[in-house]
């Protein structure tokens, strides 16, 4: 399959996956610590609290796009290309998105970790 198609699918996978991660993180921070909630509320009540959040479903929609992009990319190219390329890029894009959109304290330690893990996963899956 044309490499342009493959990289298009990988690009869509990385973008959708990063957006999904950010939206789900927003939804879960709004929900609160699930461990604490479970001590005070029944499982159904906690589930309702999660499932009634718009950002949760937007995150799921992005994850669905990412999932089908992965299936298509895996059928077009070897997992040895798709897995390292998509996962390494996602570690970096997620760190950038966490700082920009979630105001997380992505300090030197976390940047270093994202780069080490990104390169490491690329080497592992190559």
């Amino acid at each position, binding site marked *: 399959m044309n490499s342009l198609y493959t990289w298009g699918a990988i690009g869509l996978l990385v973008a959708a996956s990063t957006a999904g991660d950010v939206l789900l993180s927003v939804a879960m921070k709004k929900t609160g610590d699930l461990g604490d909630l479970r001590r005070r509320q029944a499982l159904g009540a906690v589930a309702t609290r999660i499932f009634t959040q718009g950002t949760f479903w937007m995150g799921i929609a992005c994850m669905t796009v990412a999932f089908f992009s992965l299936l298509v990319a*895996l059928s077009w190219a070897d997992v040895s290309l798709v897995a390292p390329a998509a996962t390494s890029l996602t570690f970096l894009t997620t760190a950038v998105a966490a700082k920009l959109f979630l105001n997380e304290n992505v300090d030197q330690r976390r940047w270093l970790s994202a780069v080490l893990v990104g390169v490491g996963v690329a080497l592992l899956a190559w």
Partner: protein
Amino acid sequence: MTFRKYLVLGAMILFNAFGDVALSHGMKKMGAIHAHRLTDAVAAVFTPWVVVGILLLLGFFACYLTALSWADLSYVIPATALGYVVLALLSQWLLGETVTLTRWAGIALVGGGVFVLARGPVLTVPEKPRPPAVTADAAEGQS
């Protein structure tokens, strides 16, 4: 971090790693999906290995959401990479595959990255706005 939270992160790492393997195996068995027949990707969801992969990834998803409820995204995502290290080591011990020098380098880098990450805080605590500074005049007025 409590033991229970480490347990959630551990389960998340394992579900993710094994789920990815099942999905990859399922899609390879199915063959290439052509650009003009993208609906084949929907049919792939109902093949056995893809179903197993999806069930494992649902387990991952439950743990992932739980972790995101008490940890930063930029903490949780790199932590999931430890699953690749587990897989590489398992493939050598259980399947007799050779772990090449490149893979050992990858294992060292991912392990190092997660070690660096784990030594930092799990959650960003938003800074509280500082109370307005008491000026000399106001302080005199109070006394």
